[in-house]
């Protein structure tokens, strides 16, 4: 009996050793196990890291591939510096506005008293609408608020022509209004779980202690939500900062933002120096990195309250 049991144990040990040699024989077989991941890493190196690295290197090279800072210096002149300013402005406006409005809409749909089906509808719709973007979205807004758009026609017939009051769809404001169509749903998707985390009991406790509505939000609600809010603002900023197709189609490439400037180097006939496009792309990396650097300490401060 005892022998049989021992034999079984040895057999199962041997089996597991055969299946998982790395467990028993330590490092000796490990390189073989790694071999299976070579195709994956080869692919990501070739098509993800090498391109990213070549942008970083190319930004610091001249036409003869000699090291230079002249491309980077050029970024601080017109029209490049203005493009960064506009890009950052549009991204900040749509990220902050998207975060505030998205939070309010999500809260209105989730709070007690709102029928459950509204929340379910909003969640499903947001999942889809966060993916509406680019050329189709631009057309939908041209059909709505363009010169011949349906809302424009209504307003004009009602005696109020938006273009006479300074609104153009192909301006910065028009781009921002259109971006909100994918910023709001994204915000709603991201913030809904955080709002779920706000317990009903906290509101009741605050109310019992005599807190008014605004006091609850000022001292409990917003501080608890703050880490999620900051993360969402960063996400929305990056989402808008990287956008190319929507603005390109909406403004026929006339709005001066960084992705459109980069695109013009390849789609136009002005490919005189591709290193400028690489420098512009490098600048986008830098802006995103700076945003992250600003975000991390804020996040750490905000997260103190949620512990």
């Amino acid at each position: 009996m005892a022998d049989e049991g021992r034999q079984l144990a040895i057999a199962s040990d041997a089996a597991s050793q055969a299946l998982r040699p790395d467990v028993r024989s330590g490092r000796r077989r490990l390189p073989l196990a790694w071999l299976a991941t070579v195709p994956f890493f080869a692919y990501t190196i070739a098509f993800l890291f090498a391109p990213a690295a070549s942008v970083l290197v190319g930004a610091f090279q001249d036409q003869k591939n000699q090291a230079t800072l002249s491309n980077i210096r050029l970024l601080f002149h017109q029209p490049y510096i203005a493009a960064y300013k506009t890009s950052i402005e549009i991204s900040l406006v749509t990220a902050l506005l998207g975060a505030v409005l998205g939070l309010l809409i999500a809260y209105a749909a989730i709070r007690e008293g709102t029928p459950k089906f509204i929340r379910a509808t909003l969640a499903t719709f947001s999942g889809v609408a966060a993916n509406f973007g680019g050329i189709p979205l631009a057309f939908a807004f041209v059909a709505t608020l363009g010169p011949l758009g349906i809302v424009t026609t209504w307003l004009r017939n009602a005696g109020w022509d938006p273009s006479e009051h300074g609104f153009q769809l192909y301006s910065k404001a028009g781009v921002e209004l259109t971006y909100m169509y994918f910023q709001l749903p994204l915000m709603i998707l991201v913030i809904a779980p955080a709002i779920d985390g706000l317990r009903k009991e906290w509101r009741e406790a605050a109310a019992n202690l005599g807190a008014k509505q605004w006091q609850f939000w000022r001292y409990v609600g917003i501080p608890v939500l703050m880490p999620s809010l900051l993360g969402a603002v960063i996400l929305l900023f990056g989402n808008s900062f990287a956008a190319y197709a929507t603005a390109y189609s909406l403004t026929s490439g006339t709005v001066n933002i960084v992705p459109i400037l980069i695109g013009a180097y390849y789609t136009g006939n002005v490919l005189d120096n591709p290193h400028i496009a690489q420098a512009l792309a490098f600048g986008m990396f830098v802006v995103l990195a700076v945003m992250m650097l600003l975000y991390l300490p804020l996040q750490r401060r905000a997260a103190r309250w949620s512990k």
Partner: protein
Amino acid sequence: MAPSAIVLLLLAATYFIVPLYATLAFSLKKNEAGAPCCTLANYSWVIHNPDFWHTIKISFLLALETIVISLVLFVPTIYWVHLRLPRLRPVIAFLALIPFVVPPIVMVVGLLRVLQGTPQWFYGTPWGFLAAAYVILAFPYMFFSLDAGFRAIDVHTLTEASQSLGASWPTTLIKVIVPNIRAAALAGSFLALAIVMGEFTIANLAAFHTFPIFLQYVNESAGFPAGALTLLSFLITWGAMASLLLVGRRRRLGLGANIAGRR
């Protein structure tokens, strides 16, 4: 229901619905003079346009190619990582976030530079250059989808059972593992389909004629047929997302995913 909540939700609903309605209305219009509604002429224009069929075929085949390459590349890798190299999992998860962070416009600048000088059949055709880029764009969605699928099954027991019955590695992978992660693989595939069918940035800068490029061309040249095409494009996105809901129950990324490269 609080009055403020009602007002806010109504305003939001208006903002989201009016552009969709306007697109539909445009697609049914005859001409700018405001001829009486409605006509299906724009839809017939689309159906009888050879460029439409040509580009949508390219985009669809590209989506299939992207899905096949992604699955062949990622399924064995993620399987292997779950089975033998669990310490590598966080590394790959981190790598999967990079395509999220790098804007597609930056990616294409790098790709155009690095791949310049590769053979013409690769650099000059969508099946080479674009597919290679789209696999990277799909990588985060594929990874998080598949990873959730692999975490839901017991990889070790399945593998040991299969091997003790004498199955080889390929048999184990194809006949035992893949059927168990089918829902996750399908979810990732639908996301990849939605990405490729709508991707404009990379195709435009690398000068390939895919469906979104055709849509933009019609946008610039023929206003009302563009309405019909836009609606079709929305339907493709919606269809991919609805299929996603059907194949899997709630998933980490699932419907919450937002697709890079389309904006």
